[in-house]
């Protein structure tokens, strides 16, 4: 950085509130799309793995491989096919959510006590009703733990998608680096951290509201 330059120029911040709000909005949108699409895919694969247990190892193995590819490399590899697009960004972001989400959905369902399942079956629940009314609600605690980790990870990763022109708080970091200007860089980084903390808090509250039974006794 330029010598004598303060870490944060507050007058720049005051003059850019609209842009900051917009970047936060973009960041949230990119994160929300990634986690929601990730959840849909993860639920489908997890249900498949619960129904057909031999499929579970190959599914987690594949998700694990995706998880280990460095994000920069993955975006670089995708750009020739899908361009500098939202699709490119989301393919990468969704890939990174799958492993943790699938593992927690399957683990949560498998952690339901066998006598609870036995009682449900013995009273005349169909297998589908057992999944939707018994196993899924009881797995919610573990599933939410997965959603929280996936969401925080994604909020961090979204800063990288600025490189392929998708905005978000990463854009501020990027211009900070390009212009040797610390104010947007620090703002982008700290807002991203703050966003992660706030969103995590919201998820905790949501989980509490959805699983009232876990707060008793």
């Amino acid at each position, binding site marked *: 950085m330029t010598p004598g330059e303060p870490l944060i120029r507050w007058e720049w911040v005051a003059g850019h509130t609209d842009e900051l709000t917009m970047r936060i909005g973009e960041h949230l949108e990119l994160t929300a799309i990634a986690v929601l699409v990730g959840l849909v895919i993860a639920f489908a694969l997890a249900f498949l793995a619960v129904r057909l247990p031999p499929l579970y190892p190959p599914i987690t193995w594949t998700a694990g491989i995706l998880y280990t590819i460095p994000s920069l490399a993955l975006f670089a590899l995708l750009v020739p096919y899908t361009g500098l697009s939202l699709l490119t960004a989301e393919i990468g972001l969704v890939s990174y959510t799958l492993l943790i989400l699938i593992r927690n959905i399957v683990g949560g369902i498998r952690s339901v*006590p066998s*006598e*609870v399942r*036995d*009682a*449900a*079956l*013995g*009273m*005349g*629940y*169909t297998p589908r*009703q057992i999944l939707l009314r*018994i196993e899924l*609600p*009881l797995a919610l605690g573990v599933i939410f733990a997965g959603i929280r980790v996936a969401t925080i990870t994604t909020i961090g990763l979204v800063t990288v998608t600025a490189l392929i022109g998708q905005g978000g708080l990463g854009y501020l970091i990027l211009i900070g680096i390009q212009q040797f200007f610390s104010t947007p860089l620090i703002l982008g980084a700290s807002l991203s951290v703050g966003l992660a903390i706030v969103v995590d808090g919201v998820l905790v509250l949501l989980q509490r509201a959805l*699983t009232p*039974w876990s707060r*008793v*006794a």
Partner: protein
Amino acid sequence: MAERAGATVELREVTKRYGDTVAVDRLSFTVPAGRICVLVGPSGCGKTTSLRMVNRLIEPTSGEILIDGQNVLAEDPTQLRRRIGYVIQQTGLFPHQTVADNIATVPRLLDWPKERIQARVDELMKLIGLDPERMRRRYPAQLSGGERQRVGVARAMAAEPPLMLMDEPFAAVDPIVRERLQNEFLRLHRSIGMTVIFVTHDIDEAIKLGDRVAVMRLGHLVQYAPPGELLAHPADAFVAQFVGSDRGLKRLSLLTVGGVELEQVDRARLDSAPVLSPAMSLRDALAVMLSSEAQEGAVMDGDRYLGALTLPRIGRMLRVDEPS
């Protein structure tokens, strides 16, 4: 207030094989409507497998199971299970549902109207001694072991099933609570009159609860008889050993003072003798007489003197067959 008579259940040559292992071998018996049949035996004897074949949680390899003459194997298993109450040892209560929601399980599956479900839940909670106002919204984790078992029983009875299957329902609670639950269950059964098939490994529980006791061993039915007969005439050495060397004493708890022949002696002679009531079990009468060092007791029905019960008379009732 008998809501509905129980169903007659008949097992005909029911067999379950796992590969080369025979878990249950040509099991046949009939449970008359409204009676409690207890399946008892050491672990691995096939009692739980037999129970679970009745509601088709396990499919028999061969044989027939008839409920009121209808073969359960011809029915849709899900529909069948909704007509049969099911209680298990660990209760299997749904941890994410309140007491009221747990009890409402089968009525909801059967699409009862809301008001009817709510009324039924309240009725059942009162029946099992839980205050609906206070307990309705609690979760299973907020209940004691005994309360959980009661809710498990109430849940199984919710849709007024003519048959209930109970797999060691009272085994996980302490002895004092267990005895209370057993007594409550007998009271419930007397007022409702459903048929019950009950699995236990505890012979005392079998004798206390069963109208009929089926003793099983290695997948076979060894003896099927009312408890008194089981104690007095065990079919073989295994049954004799299983019911215990104190089976004569156990039998005394099934007999009442009013049910035996009394000696007609002068009331004045029994002045210092303990007073017994006809409803007392012979076992309790024996305890009273032994503890007051009396040879005889005066049996009184209220103010009316009925006769004397003597120690030798009780001794004769203790006598049971020795199997060859």
